[in-house]
């Protein structure tokens, strides 16, 4: 597994842990009614899980496992993957901070932070689409004789 995919997958694992820390807080609070403000963390849990964990894990595995772009550049332009990684995580972290704060005490600066978070995450998604698109294709090279390496095969 090459470094970019490892970054994606390890970061996804960190978000998985964070998501369930937040989930535990929300659920314990629901049972004990300690602080009503903690319910504002529910969308944070959904997005840590679905964007931070699921999307990032799938993105990392796809970058690793999809058929190679070419012999010379098997992963195509890796800058797209790095750009998506930076934008996705910056956008998600910004959201995790700004969304509950904005729910507790709405303000223009927090509103702008949410817009910036949205823009970053949308950019990340389309960058990954551009990075992966040319690698989603039928095999164009002849079947290799050796079947020892299945990764990226048809």
């Amino acid at each position, binding site marked *: 597994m090459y470094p970019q995919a490892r970054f994606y997958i390890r970061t996804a694992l960190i978000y998985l842990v964070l998501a369930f820390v937040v989930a535990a807080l929300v659920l314990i609070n629901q049972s004990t009614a300690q602080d009503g403000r903690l319910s504002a963390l529910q969308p944070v849990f959904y997005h840590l899980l679905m964007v931070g964990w699921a999307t990032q894990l799938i993105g990392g595995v796809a970058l690793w496992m999809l058929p190679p772009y070419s012999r010379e550049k098997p992963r195509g332009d890796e800058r797209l993957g790095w750009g998506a990684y930076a934008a996705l995580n910056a956008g998600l972290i910004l959201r995790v901070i700004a969304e509950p704060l904005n729910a507790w005490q709405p303000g223009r600066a927090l*509103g702008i932070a*949410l817009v910036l978070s*949205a823009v970053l995450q949308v950019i990340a*998604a389309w960058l990954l689409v551009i990075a992966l698109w040319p690698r*989603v294709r039928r095999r164009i090279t002849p079947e290799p004789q050796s079947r020892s390496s299945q990764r990226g095969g048809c």
Partner: protein
Amino acid sequence: MPHVSVVMVRMALLWWGVGFTLGGLTLANKGLSFHGGVWTLRTGHIFVLLVGWLVQFSAGVAVWIMPRLVHPGVVTGSGDRGDLRLAWLCCVALNAGVALMALHAPLVWLGGGDVPALRWMPALAGVLWLIAIAAFVANVWPRVRPVIEPLTMTVKE
């Protein structure tokens, strides 16, 4: 990668971009409240990402990567992927359902709220997804098995 997987994975990538764009609009609206109606896109955002992206990507990759069927007594090289018409049915029905759900919320918004004439859209999407998932499972079910080497017919766990 078979043609149907190429189509499914590429459609999933497109829905991924569309779903994030819909979600981005709703999040940005949460921040700056530029239009009250944008919130109606949230339902489309959820279904486009869950079904159009997550389910379709997984299904497309599964059709590609699951062990192939090997028929005893018949040497078919590396085997086959079963009846790929089922995978195509899954692809068409799933994407039709996602398109219906992606269009439903903005159409309701443009219609000014609950539009009874459009209630058939989520219902049809639900039926289409049921057909899609049944077809996918029918294709993949027999392929979830231990690997069998076609020439020796020995089983590898």
